[in-house]
Structure formats: structure tokens, C-alpha cells
């Protein structure tokens, strides 16, 4: 298997042979930062293009097809345009909180992004409490959204933020409980360890029925976490104009937009890491020839393939389902998903002990 780790190891040795240790470390830190930024920005552009293209496909349109081949440069053009837009100063906003909100939203999403294992060794932060870290950092985004709605001096943003807060904190519980079943199965919270355990069988095959239920719960709850699709109440445009980011203009709005798309990627990436084997190829025990062929595909391709399959599912749901009402939304979580995930944990415990 070709791991990207070879490149980073080579770079590390190269820097250490020519530079002092301190300087080498500093340059590596800078390179990690630049790599994260580049990956973040490129993925956002790809996701925005993909969303518009897939949406067009579902609605029998062509989608963006003017700028570049297949409209690939459309989102780059949009990014440049949004940078050129005026940053409007709103009367009576709380200036400190108004700016803090976008920092919090972006910090939450980049810190989660940094902990994703793209390949063996290609993971910026690999805490031994990785799953816990993911849950903790990604829930910071709620604070950013609430602050954004509160500080904007607008009724719509306030209502949008309240709805968003209620929705995000509710669905976070199901997310956490669904991830807990996988932690029980693998007996570790470290993401690289969880992925390494799936070299023979992905968790969804190892865990049997409880793992499949957990994956379904996680995909529904994660989809709601991203404020998209049938769960886009906080920004229901027919009721609340644009929800909590109504008053943000130009690139300030761009940050919320960016974080929304990257959160979609992060949810899909966590699903593929914990349930679908991360960067591990698909193996069937006993089929040596088949496994050897699967090993030829680089792990990064496996990771992105699984992730983009989950993302496609999310887009499909978004453009198929009508929007829920707030009571339906909260009932779905508290009366269906929550009891189901509690039962699922007991099921998983019994599965581990008896199977």
C-alpha cells in the first residue's frame, strides 16, 4: 500500500539533516498549518461545486457549466467575488461578539478537521481521547452560532440562533451515543487506533446489527448537526430570511458558509473513519487475491471515496426531503433517536459479550 506517510517522513528527514532541530520543527509546524489551510479551502471549493452540480442533477438542470471545464472554477470565482464585497457595518451590533462568532465557528470546524486521519500518519492531532476531542471541539460551533444570532441586533437572527442552538445540542446527544457504540466495540478512543483495528473487517461488519443502527442514527443526527437538508430550520428562508447569519455581509458570511460545508465533510469523514474503516481498503477474509487487488488502491483514495459517498447521501437527502417543523424536529430527536440510541448501547454491550 502506498501511504502518504512516506512523503512526510522523507520531508521530516530532509529538514532535519539540513537544519537545526528547532528550526526544522518550526518549519514543519508552518507546513502543517499551510497544508491544513490548503486542504480546508480546496475541499470547501470542491464541496460547493459538488453541491450545485448534484442539486442541478436532481432538478434536471445542468448546474454551473460556464467557468472552466464543467464549471469547476465556478466556486473559485465565487470566492473571489465574496472577498470583493463590502463589509457593511450594522448599527447597534455588539462589535466584539459580532466578530468573535465567526472566529468560534471557524475554529470549531478547523480543530475538528485537524483530527481527521486522512491516511496512516496524515493526521495533525492524534489525541488518545480522539473521539471525545471531536465531540468536544465540534460542539464549540453552537456557541459561535448563538453569539452570532444574539449580537446581530435583529429579531430573525435571534430566533434563528435559538432554533439552531436547540437543534444542535439535541442532535449532539445522539451523535455522541452513536459514536460511543463504536468506542465500546474497539475499546479505544484514539482515532488512529480505531482505524488500525479495522484492517480485517470494518466496524460496521464487526459490530453487526448494533453498528448498522448506530451508523444510521449517526448519519441522521450528523446531518441535523450541519443545519442542512430537511433540518435547515435555523435558516428557513421563508420564515427567517437567512437565520443567524442574516446580518453578516461579504466574507463574514463566507465564514459561516465555509464552516457549514466543511462540517458536512467532517461529519461524513467521521462516519467513514469510525464505521467504514477510514483509509483501510475493503477486505474479505480468505480472499487473498481480491484483498491484494484492493490493496493496490491508495488509502487516501479509499478515505475520500467513502467520505464522498456519505456526502452524496447527505446531498441526496437534502434535495429530496421537505423541511421539518420545529416540533417534528425535536420529537424526532428526543422521542425516536434518543431512546433508540440508548437501547442500541445495551444491544452493543450484549453483542460484544455474547458474540
Amino acid at each position, binding site marked *: 500500500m502506498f501511504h502518504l506517510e512516506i512523503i512526510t517522513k522523507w520531508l521530516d528527514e530532509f529538514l532535519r539533516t539540513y537544519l537545526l532541530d528547532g528550526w526544522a520543527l518550526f518549519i514543519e509546524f508552518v507546513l502543517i498549518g499551510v497544508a*491544513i489551510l490548503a486542504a480546508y479551502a480546496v475541499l470547501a471549493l470542491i464541496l460547493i461545486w459538488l453541491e450545485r452540480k448534484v442539486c442541478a442533477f436532481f432538478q434536471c438542470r445542468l448546474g454551473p457549466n460556464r467557468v472552466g471545464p464543467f464549471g469547476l472554477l465556478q466556486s473559485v470565482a465565487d470566492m473571489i467575488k465574496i472577498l*470583493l464585497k*463590502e463589509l457593511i457595518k450594522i448599527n447597534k451590533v455588539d462589535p466584539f461578539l459580532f466578530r468573535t462568532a465567526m472566529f468560534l465557528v471557524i475554529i470549531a470546524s*478547523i480543530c475538528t478537521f485537524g483530527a481527521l486521519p486522512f491516511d496512516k500518519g496524515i493526521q495533525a492531532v492524534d489525541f488518545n481521547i480522539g473521539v471525545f476531542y471531536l465531540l468536544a471541539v465540534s460542539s464549540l460551533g453552537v456557541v459561535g452560532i448563538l453569539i452570532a444570532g444574539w449580537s446581530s441586533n435583529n429579531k430573525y437572527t435571534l430566533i434563528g440562533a435559538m432554533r439552531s442552538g436547540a437543534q444542535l445540542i439535541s442532535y449532539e446527544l445522539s451523535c455522541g451515543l452513536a459514536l460511543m457504540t463504536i468506542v465500546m466495540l474497539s475499546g479505544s478512543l484514539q482515532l488512529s487506533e480505531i482505524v488500525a483495528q479495522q484492517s480485517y473487517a470494518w466496524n460496521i461488519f464487526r459490530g453487526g446489527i448494533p453498528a448498522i443502527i448506530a451508523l444510521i442514527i449517526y448519519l441522521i443526527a450528523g446531518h441535523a448537526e450541519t443545519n442542512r437538508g430537511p433540518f435547515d430550520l435555523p435558516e428557513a428562508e421563508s420564515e427567517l430570511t437567512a437565520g443567524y447569519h442574516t446580518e453578516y455581509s461579504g466574507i463574514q458570511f463566507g*465564514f459561516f458558509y465555509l464552516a457549514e460545508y466543511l462540517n458536512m465533510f467532517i461529519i461524513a469523514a467521521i462516519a467513514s473513519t469510525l464505521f467504514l474503516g477510514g483509509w483501510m481498503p475493503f477486505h474479505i477474509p480468505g480472499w487473498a487475491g481480491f484483498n491484494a487487488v484492493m490493496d493496490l488502491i491508495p488509502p487516501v483514495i479509499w478515505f475520500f471515496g467513502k467520505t464522498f459517498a456519505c456526502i452524496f447521501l447527505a446531498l441526496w437527502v437534502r434535495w429530496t426531503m421537505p423541511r421539518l417543523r420545529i416540533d417534528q424536529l425535536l420529537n424526532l430527536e428526543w422521542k425516536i433517536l434518543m431512546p433508540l440510541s*440508548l437501547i442500541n448501547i445495551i444491544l452493543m454491550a450484549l453483542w460484544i459479550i455474547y458474540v
Partner: protein
Amino acid sequence: MSNSSLFLVVLITAVVMVVAALLIAWLLSPKSSNPLKGEPYECGIPTRGSSWTQFKVGYYLYAILYLVFDVETVLLFPWASVMRQLGMQGLICIAVFFCILTFGLVYAWKKGALQWK
């Protein structure tokens, strides 16, 4: 490279990204002032009254319930990571904890805290 320093790198990256993008936008974007531009956007109608209006008390109930179940998640994660070693005994202990928790959820449900009115 320890994880904590790498976490700091990621954090700084996030801050640098926001600051850099804001700086670029501030340098490139047009600036014009108009008193009407600063009005809160409410679909073209002038705002009436304060923007910090009342909102439903129902949100608080969900927040309180969330707090209970989130703390429960924190308690369950350590058990989940070592449950293979603890085996049946640990499972029974957690089952008792689960029963109390489920009782809480059922109580809130019966009391109508989960009913959006």
C-alpha cells in the same frame, strides 16, 4: 512533536485564516457609508421596538434536558472504552445507571417537557 503543540498549531491556523481573509476583504472591498445601510434587515420594513425580543421558554427545557444527558455521555465514555475488561459486572452497574437515566427521560416525557406548545 507532542499533540498539545500540534493542537496549538491547528488553533493558530484557524485564527490566522480568519484574520487573513478579513484583512484581504478589508483591503479589497469598496467602502461607502449610508445611514440606511446600517439598519437591521427585516425584508425592507423599518424595525419596530427592540431587537432582543422574548423567545419561547421551551428552549430552556431542552437545554436543561441536554445538560443531564450530556453529563451522562461524559460518564459513559470511560466505561465504554474499558467495557471489554469490566465484562458482565460493569454492564450490570451501567444498566442500573441506565435505568435511572431512562426514568428521567420518561418523567420529562410524561410531564410534557418534550411537547412543543
